[in-house]
Structures are given as C-alpha cells and as structure tokens.
C-alpha cells in the first residue's frame, strides 16, 4: 500500500519531507474507505469547504471593516456599497455561517443515526462537539460585529446568560464586557476573538481528521471493514463523489447568496445599535433557535441557562448512554422510531424558538425540551437494553456479494 513515486524530484522531496505520503494517507490510495458510504458522508468534507469559504471571505471583510462603535455600522455599509464585490463577500460570509450550521447539523444527525459516536470513535465525536461549541462562539461574536440593533441586543442578552450563576456571574459579565454594558471594549475583543477562533477550529478539524483516520469512516451498516474486499481507495472514488455533492451544495448556497441574501437575517440589524431602545421581538439566528427555545422553556433563570448548555454538553455522554451494541439504526427497529421523534423534537424547538414565548410555542418548547433530554437519558439506555436488533451482515461486502468471501476482483481493486 505504500506510495510509490516515480518522479525523481518528488522522490527527493518525499525523502526529506513526507508530504506526498501524508496526502496519500489522507485522501489517496493509502486511505482505504468503506465502499458503501452514502451521500450523508459528503457533509464532513462540505463542512471543511465551508470553513475555508468563511475564512477567506472573513479575511477579505476584515480588510474593509472597522471594529469601533462609531464606525462599525458605517464600515459594513461601506463594504456593501463601495468595496468592489463587497456585497458578495458579505453575503457569502453571512449566509456561509448559516450554510456551515446546515451542513454541520446534518453531519451530526448522520452520526447520531449511524452510531458514529460509538467505540472506537468516542474522541472523534468529542472533538466534533468541541468544534460545534467553537463554531457557536464564533458565529455569535461575528453577528455582533455589524453593530446593528440585533448585534447589540443579542450581545447583551447572551453575555447576560452568565449573570445567572450565583456570586461569580456578575464579575464574569463585567469581565466579558470590559465595562458596565456592551460597548466599544466588547466590540473590539469580539472582533479579535472572531478572527482567532476560526483558526482554532482549523486546528480542531485537523485533530478530528487525525482521529477519523485512526479507524476510518463509519458506514451505513455500522459494521467495521474487515479487509480489502470491503474498501475502495478514497481517491478517486470519494473525491469525485464529494465533488459532485459540492456542486449540488453550491447551487443551494448560491440560491441564498444571490436570490435571498437577507432571508436568514433580521431587518432590525440594518438599524444602527441603540443602547436606549430594545427591538420589540428579539430572536437569535435560526441555528441557535432550538437552544434559545430550551432556555425560554424553563421558568427559572439559572435553570434555563444550565439546561441550554446541558443540551450540548450531554452529547459528550452519548457513547455511554447508548447501551446498544449495534451502531447503525438500520438494524434497530425500535430505536429508529425514537430517532425520528428526536428529529421532530429538534424541529419543534427550532420553530418554537422563533416565536414569542407564550401560548402554544411555549407549551411546545417545554414538551420538546423534555423529550430532548429524555431521549438521551431514558430512551437511549433503555432501548439499547431491551431492543432486539435485526441480524447484522457479516461484513460490508456480504449483503452485496453474498457469503462475505474474498472475490478475486475485489482483492485486486482494494490493493492497487
């Protein structure tokens, strides 16, 4: 399987700096991949590409943006009106944030359905959760930078979450603000951290890939690969599949950027920040709505904050809360139904989070919050215990080729 280089210059470089074998190990013939990956496995590479788009457009925006309370709003308008293609850069970046969350949420739900968090991929899963937390912090601070009404009041509300903690709460909030309210010191540090965190995410993504490549991708059957008959080289098979998926995704992305660029934002953020007036209806960006719904579902300040953070932190316990020995929900007739109830609960929270917290939305957000936690704390351990899974295939090849024996053709293909 070792990489064979013919070109003497490449050989000379490889002997001193093993770049080519490293690339080969990451995406080449040195990375045998389960041959049954479906399109849900596209979303990891898509997330990586969106991260690059965000960094590139973000560096461009930072060239034209001014992080000061008296200039920030105008500098964003300067980007929109004066800078060549500035509107494109900003719309790519603003909608790119939404695209990043769309892709990552699908990526996470893929992992939940196929049990990708289970042994031996627990640390891979943990790094993924840390990436999600870093993304959320980055997205929140980025939304503050245009210094519109939603920026200002979003920053005020979210930083005030920390005031819920007894004793340490208020000093923490003052420390976050660098003053007694959200003001210029807050804007400056948010800009600095918003620039820094994406590169932290890049580092985390490298760790994520390192952990991934230790045991390779999970697959729709949830059965580990047993030999060359179960795998194909990542390149060209999955590079081409990922590229095709990228093309489809870019059409989706382009729709928002070119035809509906402000749909996912709020009109109130085109009003300059005013510390004296709060907008009538204040909601976060859509990707925070489920967590916002959990926050508001609890009629207690500290309880709501703890449950909101807990909604993400509980994901760290999944490898142990899921007691089933079968990874893929394909072979778990009972759990599969609860999985879709969980998806519905998340969608319910998403909807309720965008509504005023009263009447039906409040009631729904409470029901969904209860199920969200019950799914992990009650359903997962019990179903894993009592459910009788359908029989697993002996290998990835067996359902297709039968018998799980090693066909001559597959062997040749897997080792070339």
């Amino acid at each position, binding site marked *: 399987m070792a990489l064979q280089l013919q070109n003497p210059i490449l050989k000379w470089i490889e002997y001193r700096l093993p770049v080519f074998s490293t690339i080969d190990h990451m995406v080449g013939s040195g990375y045998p991949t389960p041959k049954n990956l479906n399109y849900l496995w596209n979303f990891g590479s898509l997330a990586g590409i969106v991260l690059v788009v965000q960094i590139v457009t973000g560096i461009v925006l930072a*060239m*034209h943006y001014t992080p000061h309370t008296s200039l920030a709003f105008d500098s964003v308008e*300067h980007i929109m009106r*004066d*800078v*060549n293609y*500035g509107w*494109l*850069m900003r719309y790519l970046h603003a909608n790119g944030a939404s695209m990043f969350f769309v892709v990552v949420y699908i990526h996470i739900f893929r992992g939940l359905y196929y049990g990708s968090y289970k042994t031996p991929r627990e640390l891979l899963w943990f790094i993924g959760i840390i990436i999600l937390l870093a993304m959320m912090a980055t997205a929140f601070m980025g939304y503050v930078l245009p210094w519109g009404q939603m920026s200002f009041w979003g920053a005020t509300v979210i930083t005030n979450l920390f005031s819920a903690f007894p004793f340490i709460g208020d000093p923490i909030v003052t420390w976050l603000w660098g003053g007694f309210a959200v003001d210029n010191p807050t804007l400056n540090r948010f800009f600095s951290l918003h620039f820094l965190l994406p590169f932290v995410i890049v580092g985390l993504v490298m760790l994520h890939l390192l952990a991934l490549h230790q045991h390779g991708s999970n697959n729709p059957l949830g059965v580990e690969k047993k030999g060359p008959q179960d795998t194909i080289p990542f390149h060209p098979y999955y590079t081409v599949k990922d590229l095709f998926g990228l093309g489809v995704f870019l059409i989706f992305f382009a729709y928002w950027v070119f035809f509906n660029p402000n749909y996912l934002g709020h009109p109130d953020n085109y009003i300059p920040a005013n510390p004296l007036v709060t907008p009538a209806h204040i909601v976060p960006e859509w990707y925070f709505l489920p967590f916002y719904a959990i926050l508001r579902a609890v009629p207690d300040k500290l309880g709501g904050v703890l449950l909101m953070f807990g909604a993400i932190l509980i994901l760290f316990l999944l490898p142990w809360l899921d007691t089933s020995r079968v990874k893929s929900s394909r072979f778990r007739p009972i759990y599969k139904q609860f999985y879709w109830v969980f998806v519905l609960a998340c969608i319910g929270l998403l909807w309720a989070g965008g509504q005023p917290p009263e009447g039906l939305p409040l009631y729904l957000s409470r029901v969904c919050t209860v199920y969200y936690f019950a799914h992990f704390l009650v359903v997962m351990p019990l179903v894993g215990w009592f459910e009788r899974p359908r029989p697993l295939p002996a290998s990835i090849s067996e359902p297709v080729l039968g018998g799980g024996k090693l066909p001559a053709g597959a062997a040749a293909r897997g080792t070339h």
Partner: protein
Amino acid sequence: MSSTTTGGAGAGEPTRRDFLYIAAVGIGAVGTAAAIWPFISQMNPSADVLALSSIEVDLSNIQTGMSVTVLWRGKPVFVRHRTQAEIDKAVADDKADLPDPATDESRVKKPEWLVMMGVCTHLGCVPLGQQGDYGGWFCPCHGSHYDTSGRIRKGPAPLNLPVPEYAFISDTRIKIG
C-alpha cells in the same frame, strides 16, 4: 456505451470519455477563475476612494516664488508659482543633457504655474523644494536632484516628477484629476 470501450477505438483515437473529462475540467477551471476574480477585485480602490479622485486648488493666495503642497489621492502635489528666473533657467536647460528629455513648455499649461506630483520617481519619497544642485527639488532619501521644471538631472531616479492631469477652471483656480 460500447463506443466508449477502449477496444472499439483505435490507438490515440479520442473517446467520448476523453471529451467528458476535458469538458468537465475546462468548465471547472472557468468557474474557479470566475469565483476568484471578486476576491482579487475587492482589493482595488473602492467607489468612495475613486470619488475622491479630483480636487480644486485656489491659486489666488500663492505669491510669486511660493509653493503649496496639496494632497491628491493620498499623495502630495506641488503647486509652485515660479519666478521669471526659474522659468528662464528651465527653458534654457531644454537642450541640456536630460535623462528624461522634456521641454519646460510641455510640462506646464502656464509658464508661471508648475503643477506636478511631489513623489520622487525613484522610490516614492517626497523631495524637498528649492534645494539641490539645480535649484529645484532634492530628494533626501537617495539623493536625486530635480531642476526648476521638476526634471530629473542627477541621482538614481529614472524619470521627471510626473505632471498630473489638471486644468485651469478660471485664472486663479485649477482642478487636479
């Protein structure tokens, strides 16, 4: 699909697959180039910078023998009300051995008014006025000497101080840019 099999086509004969391959890569390359262009273009001067591309200067307060320096597009422009002696000297040197030959007449619209960029053509420093071996400008950075018409006479600079586009909108007012 049988026509795409390698056995059917002769050696070196392009196949349908070759066509698809080249077409796909070609479209991809064009698309990538189109996507990269805005990222390059955004660093060019923005509309508000371009809007500052012209200024007007009032000449009525500039006495003979005085200069003013104005800022145009972020760079200094020298506006000098030349003395008759300076004009005579500049015209007399039209036939001298000039590194960048130009007549004094070609560098002014009215002989008493010399308008030119105050940026040394060597590496962009601002030359000092009424100094140097030729009584014109002298760049302190690397020792370039300009004469009373702003022409390079000695030193590392290759070209005369450039004359920006300007026009007299009245006897006492010019518009630069």
